[in-house]
């Protein structure tokens, strides 16, 4: 009898855990948190984003933790902002409550002394007004494996409350960063460059004020779902710049709404199999395709042309697990009744 009870109990627990899905630590503030949240169906990763600012008077750390979609990557950078050093790091993981640890900036500072050949990089921030050739500051990278980085990212849509940190130079460890990674469409522009020699990130170009020369390719451009953003009427054409000589289209799950979503534009070949479409566009489990012909990114035109990998994620909705749960319970009750009869 006892044996039966416990097996059933364990079975019930298993069912409960299945129904609850992934849980992640969740917080947004100046102290690390132990609150957890249950992720939505389309979120199958836990994320930790940490921003640490170092001033003469002390250290301040900001934590942003929670559930996220898959397909993103771990990245970190550090740069000089006025009289502060800003460290930014983001990590993703996929098991229950796995985002407990946070990238620790103190370790990084301690590591500084032990390093054999510290890398020197130029550092600046456009928002701080320091990205001019004449006044570029230098910084020493603290982690082994760090490269000099140069990140440009801006959107044409002004955000209501904040402005993008449009251009940053500094030290960093960025995923997939060998060749320059570039993407642009009618609404946004991203270009990430990494290099491995000291002070190799000197070039100070403002890609917003002086766009890169056109390379002759034209691609379709849109962002959104099939009723808004990427509906046939929303799709425009964009002339590709610089090394962004492929047409890209990607489909996945929108990180906020959980709906199917599409992105089209020009990309460099290095961007195509990088995680940056997922990161910048908050697109979960993206399926990305790049091609080289004129206006060739035209396969995805409606829901039916979406790749199965994306759809299976979208279909994984609450009703499925409820049905599963109730049917298992019924089976279990039936099993109980049978065993009593026998």
């Amino acid at each position: 009898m006892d044996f039966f009870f416990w097996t059933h109990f364990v079975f019930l627990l298993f069912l409960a855990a299945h129904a609850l899905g992934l849980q992640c630590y969740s917080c947004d503030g100046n102290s690390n948190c132990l609150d957890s949240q249950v992720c939505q169906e389309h979120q199958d990763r836990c994320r930790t984003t940490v921003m640490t600012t170092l001033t003469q008077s002390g250290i301040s750390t900001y934590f942003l933790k929670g559930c996220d979609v898959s397909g993103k990557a771990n990245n970190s950078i550090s740069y000089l902002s006025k009289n502060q050093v800003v460290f930014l790091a983001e990590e993703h993981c996929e098991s229950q409550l796995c985002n407990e640890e946070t990238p620790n900036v103190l370790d990084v500072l301690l590591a500084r002394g032990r390093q054999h050949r510290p890398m020197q990089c130029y550092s600046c921030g456009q928002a701080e007004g320091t990205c001019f050739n004449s006044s570029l500051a230098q910084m020493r990278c603290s982690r082994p494996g760090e490269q000099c980085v140069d990140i440009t990212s801006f959107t044409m849509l002004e955000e209501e409350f904040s402005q993008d940190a449009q251009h940053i130079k500094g030290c960093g460890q960025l995923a997939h960063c060998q060749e320059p990674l570039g993407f642009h469409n009618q609404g946004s522009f991203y270009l990430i460059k990494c290099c491995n020699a000291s002070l190799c990130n000197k070039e100070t170009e403002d890609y917003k004020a002086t766009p890169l020369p056109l390379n002759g390719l034209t691609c379709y451009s849109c962002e959104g779902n099939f009723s808004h953003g990427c509906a046939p009427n929303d799709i425009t054409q964009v002339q590709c710049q610089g090394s962004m000589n492929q047409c890209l289209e990607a489909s996945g799950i929108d990180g906020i709404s959980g709906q199917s979503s599409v992105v089209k534009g020009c990309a460099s070949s290095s961007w195509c199999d990088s995680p940056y479409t997922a990161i910048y566009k908050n697109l979960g489990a993206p399926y990305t395709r790049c091609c080289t012909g004129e206006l060739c990114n035209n396969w995805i035109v409606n829901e039916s042309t979406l790749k199965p990998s994306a759809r299976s994620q979208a279909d994984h909705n609450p009703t499925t697990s409820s049905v599963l749960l109730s049917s298992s319970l019924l089976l279990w009750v039936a099993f109980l009744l049978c065993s009593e009869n026998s």
Partner: protein
Amino acid sequence: MKLLFVTSVMLSALLTDFASARHSEKLHRQASKTKYERQDCNCLHGGTCISYHLFSRVKRCLCPQGYSGDRCEIDVEIQCYTGNGEDYRGTKSVNEQNEKCLMWDSALLKRWPYNDGIENAMELGLGKHNYCRNPDGRTKPWCYVRRGYRTFSTFCDLSECQKQATCGQRRFSKYFKIVGGNKAEIESQPWIATIFQYMKRSAYNMFLCGGSLIDPCWVATAAHCFKGRSLDPTQFTVILGKTSLTTDEESEQKFKVERVILHEEFLEEAPNFDNDIALLKIRSSSGQCAEESNVAKTICLPPENLVLNDNFRCEVSGYGKANSSDILYARILKSTNVNLISQSLCREEYYSGRGLNGNMFCAGDPRWKTDACQGDSGGPLVCDYNGRMVLYGIVSWGDGCAKERKPGVYTRVTRYLPWIASHMNGVHFKSFYPPQ
């Protein structure tokens, strides 16, 4: 077995509830998440909110010179407190015996009523620092110190700021005219400021615009004064207490400009100037703000809901042209009376098609004899309210000067009080209003 069956049914009911509760929770979370995505960082003192796209749009305040802290709430330069110092957000960190304050996040303070960990720590100014604060309404800012093995709370080595200048009061008032008018004594408009720009090519200070002293450290003026100019603050000078632009007076006070803040939505295109307002932060070479005297006083800001009646009589003053055809500015301070004009009359009759909106208002002489003119821009239009003078308008634009049916158009200051407050130290702001 029966018992087990009953429990299992109960458990399954519980689980189903759980699943549905989870579903509704999800909807709720989704809503709050969207809210977060759009959230402001609430930067104070004109700090800029920047977001890092590559790092889940995590946001941070970029503070202007002189401020620090996660929300730019810490005033690095202030050396005194006002009132009981509840709003003091400076960086003093020793007590009256010159002992060092304990950090508010110190482990020693975990059991004390005030520390970094309490619920409203941010609002009370407590954080990962040891600056003096007054979170509990004592008489002045204080902090905890450690003597041996004991912790004490002690008052800080801070003194009260000089009494706030009593805004909007003057020694005497005379009504003069600007166009075709007479000289005005500076004592009648002690809040008027003159803004000069240093011209590198000809190496002299050119008179740019008028302004109004709304706080010992701040001058309000018109944004269009800076149209097409570099905003590098070092090229500007502000002088208070000037009756004539051409002569230096002993009583005048001269300031450098630390910051130039134009309204973010200032529209400089025709047919009008929308949001034509700017703030200058001033400081003398010795680090002081304006000192109150007979020729330098602050003007009150109007209460937010103040709407004065049509035909209400106000004063406008400036150093501008006496006639629109004149080439030279009058160079001496002049002042005149103008009456407020009905908004609909001005919008539909006098300036129809010019997009006159609620951010502006019109005022003029009923007989069209006097008016503000070029060179008066940025200067004050002040009105008597409860026995004090309040800054009701800023000289903005108009067709010609004193032209019939073409009154002067002014920036409606009451519309910009939150904007002004967000860029200045909100603390002092309370003392700017006239008594009710």
